[in-house]
């Protein structure tokens, strides 16, 4: 296990470092001048030159990259070019919302998918199974932004039960939860549909195994067989998909935050790229990378926990 952790940590650091280099290179190759974006097309050449000097854009790329890495290692992610405040402040004030969305979406996805997937497997080739298969097919086919718009039209515009967007902050928990219901639902629909299908087929495979038949023959209660004996052995493919889905939930928030005008990291990165705000893009992409790599790492650890056979190989 110690060697496993060491190997994974080295891999983790190498991945993050590579990502920072790629982002830095791409942002420098990409046409676009932050000073021109800020001052607009009527600005004089002198004002532009003064701003470029203030933003430190005149140094060579490698010098800037080295300075960035040096500062980042000490926890200083620099100052945003466009907002003129520390990047860490911008990221921290927006992180709770995006994490709430992603974690809320993940929990809802897992709960919904397990209930529907196991339920469908238990009712294999019956109406419940067909129902789940049909609904999940629709769920996969519907893009999340479109689902989001339909949810807004129904629940915010016509019924007026929930707000159409925006986020009041966690200081008012009831309003905050109300504001998150529709975005989380929109994120969940596609993901839960995919996961329910994976759960169903994985459970069906396990249910054909001898020990399940034995348990049935011994007269164990149906629900107990399903949740205590089938589910744990069906988990490996489910956990794999959940890990991948968490990454796509994080990126999915970019779209959902735009549709529901939520002040999260997704909209921030979108705006930062448009503004050529290199320090901000760099920090955000690195953060997303860290989250994704961490989740993959956790998935690997969970594999070992749920399938002791993997421990020997690790």
């Amino acid at each position: 296990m110690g060697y496993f952790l060491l190997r994974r940590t080295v891999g983790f650091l190498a991945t993050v470092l590579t990502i920072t280099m790629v982002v830095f290179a791409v942002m420098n190759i990409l046409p676009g001048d932050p000073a021109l974006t800020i001052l607009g097309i009527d600005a004089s050449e002198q004002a532009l030159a003064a701003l470029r000097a203030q933003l430190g854009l005149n140094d060579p790329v490698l010098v800037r990259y080295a300075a960035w890495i040096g500062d980042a290692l000490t926890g200083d992610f620099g100052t945003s070019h466009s907002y003129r405040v520390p990047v860490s402040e911008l990221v921290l004030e927006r992180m709770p919302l995006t994490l709430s969305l992603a974690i809320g979406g993940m929990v809802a996805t897992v709960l919904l998918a397990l209930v529907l997937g196991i339920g469908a497997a238990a009712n294999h080739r019956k109406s419940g199974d067909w129902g789940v298969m049909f609904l999940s097919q629709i769920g996969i086919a519907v893009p999340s932004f479109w689902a989001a718009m339909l949810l807004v039209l129904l629940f915010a515009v016509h019924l007026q039960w929930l707000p159409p967007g925006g986020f009041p902050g966690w200081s008012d928990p009831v309003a905050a939860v109300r504001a998150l219901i529709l975005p989380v639902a929109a994120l969940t629909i596609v993901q839960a549909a995919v996961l329910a299908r994976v759960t169903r087929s994985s459970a069906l495979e396990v249910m054909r195994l001898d020990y399940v038949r034995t348990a049935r023959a011994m007269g164990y209660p149906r629900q107990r067989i399903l949740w205590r004996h089938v589910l744990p052995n069906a988990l490996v493919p489910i956990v794999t998909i959940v890990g991948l889905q968490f990454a796509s939930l994080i990126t999915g928030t970019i779209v959902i935050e735009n549709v529901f005008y939520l002040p999260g990291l997704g909209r921030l990165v979108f705006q930062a790229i448009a503004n050529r705000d290199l320090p901000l893009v760099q920090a955000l992409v690195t953060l997303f990378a860290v989250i994704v790599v961490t989740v993959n790492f956790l998935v690997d650890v969970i594999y070992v926990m749920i399938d002791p056979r993997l421990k020997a190989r690790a």
Partner: protein
Amino acid sequence: MRTTAAPALLAALALAFAAPAAAQMRISLGLQQEPTSLDPTSDATAAINVMLAQNVYESLTTVDSSGAVQPQLAESWEISDDGRTYTFNLVQGATFHDGSPFTADAVVFSFERARGEDSTNPRKATFQAIEEISKVDEHTVELTLGNPDAFFLFDIAQGPASILHPDTVESNASRPVGTGPFMFDAWTRGDRLRLVKNPDHRNAENVALEIVEYRFISDPAAASAALMAGELDAFPGFPAPELIAQFEADPRFTVINASTEGEVILALNNARAPFDTLEARRALSHAIDREEIIEGAMYGLATPIGSFYPPHGPAYVDLTGMYPHDPDMARQMFEEAGVLGDTLLLRVPPFPYATRSAEIVQAQLGAAGMDVRVENVEWGFWLEEVYTNKNFDMTIIAHTSPNDLSNFARGPDYFYGYDDAAFNDLWASIRTEVDDEARFALIREAQEYLADAAVHGFLFQLPALGVFREGVEGFWESQPILYTPLSEVTVR
């Protein structure tokens, strides 16, 4: 008299309990663009001026809804006979939101900062034209321009000329402090910005709104849903002309189609073939059909232009008939210019008016025998490849600044690639002509000159479409300058 005491007491009690219950007048406004800074003197983002110019920040002069210059922090001024020296008499008793008094020092500081070496003011050129500025006494400022400038009083009314205080200037990007009728209260980046009424403003008794909340909603469908769900009272710059009809038909809303200073042009690269020749540019002018573009791209909600001047302006001449739409004639002219069938690169920035117009332009030029390659590009890419490197044949862009005929006098380095000594002289005489009627005559001449030279395809004037909930009143119905003042707005 004792008998009346009880009812009077009751009435007083009733008032005392009723008073706190009286709702504060508040308004919730949608905005498509969110600024990243709140300082209009160092960032050109339009939304900063829409929210804060005239509301939080004030300038020496202001501009009314008809486009005329009016006094603001300067209550009056004298101009010397040679038109170069201005003496501003400042209002007395005005204060900044942090309590510091407004005096001549703040004016001198703001202007010196804007014209300084390190200045990143988006309108730095306006301030660099000032040769000298000095404080005469606490409430009088005198400044001298290098040359007389007919637009100076207008230019110093704009957001980038806001008067700031030296103590708070550094924090204005996130905590703006001005002298205006509203004070900054809070900004949740990515979500909303709140202003509250300034009770100490000299005009406070006439300002009805107590709380103003701006919500940042970039997606047009989300903007529409927020209005329909009653989350917003108004959306002054509504981003989607295609959704306007639904609000016009709905009795809960009123729609204002305000004219703006934004001329939308099919900009031609005059510095390279094929549009370096007059024949090819005139052929293009005959090939485009403005009505069809306005119908298709703006759902009919825009006014055609034949040159580069807003139709609501005092010196406007209608030149839309100069090159009648005629694809056959255009084809013949392209052939005579020796460019028929050439491929033209049309690079389009990511604004709906531009991307939609581009498809129609492509079809219209196709009908005149030209092959148009449309490339939709992102804004940063446009700024670098089209604006800076001039790597394009055509592009579609709105020029939203007032008095921007000056663009055509910016020389060969500007992305138009248009360099014409005769026009430069004409512009110089416009700029220095301080007599209104004489200047209007020159501006008319300039419009005709540019139309005759067919410098660009002049398309239409960009409208500012506003959607307002029933009962919201007092917004301007024209936009001669980039302000959305709220002092006169009321909500029922």
